[in-house]
């Protein structure tokens, strides 16, 4: 188990290293620099600025310094949000994004699995068609349509919830963004659950349980254990989708999360912030996929950790 985790983490290192290297050089060859926006700046001040941010060094030297700092866990100072280091910005924004993402994932799992189960148990009945119809709509309707739509209904129309803002994470401010983020994932999970549960309910061991006269709830729970495998393996892509979604959702609702800082940072050529986000995301995706694999092998003993 431990050796499996270590081996997987070690094999991920080259991927992260290549991602870092390619991103580093690509964004540096892009025209323009982080201080081009400063108007009428004294050349000597500009020189000082470049020295402080080590932009006067040759590119390979900057790359070496970046790697060296990275090895010490230092992501460097932000170019755009002056007086802040990238680590400080993440310390503020990461919890916000993580909390929303985790809440959205939990919501998507709870409702997705329940709806999928109901649909599977009532296959080809009205309930099934209704759930699948809503799920198909949920997969295809983009979150930047859902977001404004929910705002229109619940904030502007009914005045139940605030239209945006974070308000230090007040519950009312979290509802709409989390629901917007969760809906597409909920729809996918419902579809996956339904499809594999229908198959699982036809299996021999489930038929035996039915023949023994066990209540439907017990039978369903037994079938669900096997049927949830596709849902578990979808969790990896789901986490990636939630992060992509958060870029848009954080913009719509004005939430100070990683996605919003990333867009602002990219637009103002904040080299270190963009690099930091790139590293953060790739590490997150890789670690999350590893966790999913471990979870999978617990649910399905046939899958060995090799």
């Amino acid at each position: 188990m431990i050796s499996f985790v270590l081996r997987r983490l070690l094999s991920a290192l080259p991927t992260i290293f290549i991602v870092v290297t390619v991103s580093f050089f690509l964004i540096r060859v892009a025209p323009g620099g982080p201080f081009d926006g400063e108007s009428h700046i004294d050349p000597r001040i500009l020189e000082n600025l470049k020295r402080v941010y080590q932009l006067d060094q040759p590119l390979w030297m900057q790359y070496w310094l970046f790697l060296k700092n990275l090895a010490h866990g230092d992501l460097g100072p932000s170019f755009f949000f002056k007086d802040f280091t990238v680590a400080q910005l993440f310390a503020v924004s990461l919890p916000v994004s993580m909390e929303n993402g985790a809440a959205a994932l939990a919501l998507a799992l709870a409702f997705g699995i329940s709806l999928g189960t109901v649909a599977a148990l009532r296959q080809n009945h009205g309930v099934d068609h209704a759930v699948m119809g809503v799920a198909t709509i949920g997969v295809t309707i983009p979150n930047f349509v859902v977001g404004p739509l929910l705002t229109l209904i619940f904030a502007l129309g009914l005045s139940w919830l605030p239209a945006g803002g974070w308000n230090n994470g007040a519950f009312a401010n979290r509802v709409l963004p989390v629901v917007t983020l969760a809906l597409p994932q909920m729809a996918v999970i419902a579809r996956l659950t339904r499809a594999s549960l229908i198959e699982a309910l036809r299996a021999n061991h489930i038929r035996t349980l039915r023949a023994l006269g066990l209540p439907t709830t017990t039978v369903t729970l037994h079938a669900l254990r096997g049927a949830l495998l596709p849902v578990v393996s979808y969790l990896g892509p789901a986490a990636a989708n939630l992060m992509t979604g958060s870029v848009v959702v954080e913009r719509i609702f004005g939430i100070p999360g990683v996605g919003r800082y990333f867009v602002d940072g990219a637009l103002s050529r904040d080299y270190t912030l963009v690099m930091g986000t790139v590293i953060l995301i790739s590490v997150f995706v890789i670690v999350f996929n590893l966790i999913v694999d471990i979870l999978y092998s617990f649910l399905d003993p046939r899958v060995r950790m090799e």
Partner: protein
Amino acid sequence: MSVAEAFPARRGAASPVVIVCILWLVTMVVVAAGADLIAPTHYTTQDLTARFRPPAFLAGGDLRHLLGTDHLGRDMLSRLVYAVRTSILIAFFGTMIGAFFGTMIGVAAGRLRGPVDLVAMTLTDMQTALPAMFVAITFLAFFGNDIVLFVVMVSLDGWERYARLARGLVVSEQATDYVRAVEQLGARSSRVVFRHLLPNILASLVVQATLNFPQTILLETSLSFLGLGVQPPGTSLGLMLGEGRLHLLNAWWIAVLPGLVIFFTTLAMSLFGDWLRDRLDPTVDPTR
């Protein structure tokens, strides 16, 4: 394989829903192709005396602007027609480029194995670790907005899925007797790949493309919505939605109409893709 064999009639005949989807998609293509003929005015024509006119079917609307006007008094119908053209063209080329290069990389990896396989799989791992949206935002922000770069960025979404799929299919197909027989007869590798392997794995790749197309539309519209895609005074469905969002309270149609078009198009395409998969993929149970 003849057309009749590829589309056996007994499997999943087109339901009314699928026919509606196909009709909608055909309409979108016709609108995109004939934008200049259909649009009542040019999409940049402003009329500041007629701002925020509601659609004709609402109180206060008039027949000169069937779908109303936006915050600059531009005709919504005209803008929508051109937006459909822009978004569909970008998503179409994005999907095609991604499908082409993804398939080529996958086939090369599956056929040549060894170092080529290793490089290809490292590339797909990289793409998985860093979602296309983040790559696209970084590139578009740093290299400035350019339509060619934008299309290339949109095509990044999903290429790794074609690559993985094509690689897996080639690896399993190569072990079959007919491919071995062709090789025994001394066919060159290029002949094996293009004459025998590709036609046999094409169906799965086409299905993948139809399922990926909605994702590509969503990526294009998301980026335009964030202000990183199509730039004003150009128009795209995502851009219109982004602009209209500011006027939700007093002129909801500016955001809702392009939102509906995006929604119906992605919905139609993915229902069509599901149906196509049921027909072409014998491992899928069509009764589900």
